[in-house]
């Protein structure tokens, strides 16, 4: 087929104008996502089953158990106030980072989009990130570490509102009496499951707590730790000593471990 191409200036200009194209919709939405004004989400497998991970150009914005897409999208729009659309998969670097973090690599950096959250909440979540895989700390420990020793209840509330569970391991924070406590991703049972997957014997932990054993010391070093501290778990049975409180440990001449930094919860409501 031969076409007649316009040779006059005006006709040529008109043909050039005809080369205008409509952009695929993904460009505009992609730009909004990169700018952090809209989000995308994809599904990843975890120990707790499939979860939705939402993200934008600033980082991961939301993690929740996978379910009905419409329901999730609606909840996201209401809670976060941004548009969200499904994607095939997470961006490569983000997906790999999350996989490594869930496998226990604490050094991997995962950008988080925590806009709109209070400095207190961010401090609580940041502190939770320091708890190693396979260990737990009480709510009161986080409160003390962030310089708000009396805000134990507020710490619990902040952890319950953690928008990025698993990525920020709020499941590694337990009740100050050593019991497992609540968990936003499916209650205490889910919390036990994820802790077990991380190598923690939760039945043993809860049994110790029931016996009033909150802290573990070594009679050779005279150092006292949280029961799940990796240093405490290296103590041989012959030398292991249990304490119901730090005060009891202190009066027996034990000093707190420098790794897990147990703090006195005496006087805390």
């Amino acid at each position: 087929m031969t076409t007649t191409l316009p040779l006059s200036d005006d006709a040529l200009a008109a043909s050039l104008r005809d080369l205008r194209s409509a952009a695929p919709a993904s460009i505009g939405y992609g730009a909004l996502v990169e700018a952090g004004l809209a989000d995308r989400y994809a599904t990843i497998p975890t120990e707790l089953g499939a979860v939705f991970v939402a993200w934008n150009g600033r980082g991961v914005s939301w993690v929740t158990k996978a379910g009905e897409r419409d329901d999730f999208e609606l909840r996201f729009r209401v809670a976060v106030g941004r548009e969200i659309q499904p994607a095939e998969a997470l961006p490569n670097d983000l997906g790999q980072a999350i996989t490594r973090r869930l496998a226990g690599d604490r050094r991997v950096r995962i950008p988080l989009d925590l806009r709109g959250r209070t400095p207190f909440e961010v401090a609580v979540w940041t502190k939770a990130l320091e708890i190693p895989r396979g260990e737990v700390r009480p709510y009161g420990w986080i409160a003390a570490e962030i310089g708000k020793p009396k805000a134990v209840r507020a710490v619990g509330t902040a952890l319950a509102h953690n928008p990025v569970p698993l990525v920020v391991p709020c499941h590694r924070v337990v009740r100050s009496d050593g019991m497992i406590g609540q968990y936003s991703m499916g209650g205490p049972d889910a919390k036990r499951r994820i802790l077990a997957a991380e190598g923690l014997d939760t039945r043993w932990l809860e049994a110790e707590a029931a016996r009033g054993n909150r802290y573990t010391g070594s009679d050779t070093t005279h150092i006292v730790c949280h029961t799940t501290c990796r240093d405490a778990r290296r103590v041989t049975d012959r030398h292991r000593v249990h304490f119901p409180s730090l005060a009891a440990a202190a009066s027996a001449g034990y000093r707190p471990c420098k790794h897990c930094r147990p703090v006195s919860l005496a006087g805390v409501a």
Partner: protein
Amino acid sequence: MDTDVALAIRLAGDVDAAFPTLVAEHSDRLYTIALRLLGDGRDAEEVAQDALVRAFRAMHEYPHERIAELRLRPWLASITVNLARNRRRRIDDRQPPSSLEPMLDAGYDPPSDGAAAPAVTAARRETQRELAALLLRLTPAVRTAIVLRHIDGLSLAETAQALGRPEGTIKAQVFRGLRELRAMLEVAPEPLVPIHAPASAGQPLRALEAVR
């Protein structure tokens, strides 16, 4: 451009709130600029999106007064042209000019109004394809001037501003571009599809292979 002035003022007040409007109003033209400079739809998509994101980040760095005074059309065009130039360099690095990779992409079809007869539409598409291919044979500077001035529709002054060159230079480049396009059209008896990356300027058009 009155709507652009109003948009710049809104952006100066709140970049985040007004940015979606900028995206809605400028995505098509930035995509078109990138597509006609590069000839590849995928590259053009990335360049256009990147240009929007860079504009967003730049505005977050600028003081309010500077945003309010932005002339959005030439400013966004210049960001896109620079990104397309960098992209072109990378494409050339990974694809030697002898490559047989198809280098032309007709791009997204503008929404059809349904009025045109199929034969007319087909002929028009053929014309678009030919012209898009010929554009890629212009030197980059001349092609850029033509794309901004005649496809995007910037004024001579806006094109000069976007490219940071004197108006006289742009005028000469546009003139030369139109003349070269016309010359190529005159010796093109049949629809043309380039069989390889841009040949050196001045190479006879017969080197292109006519299809069918």
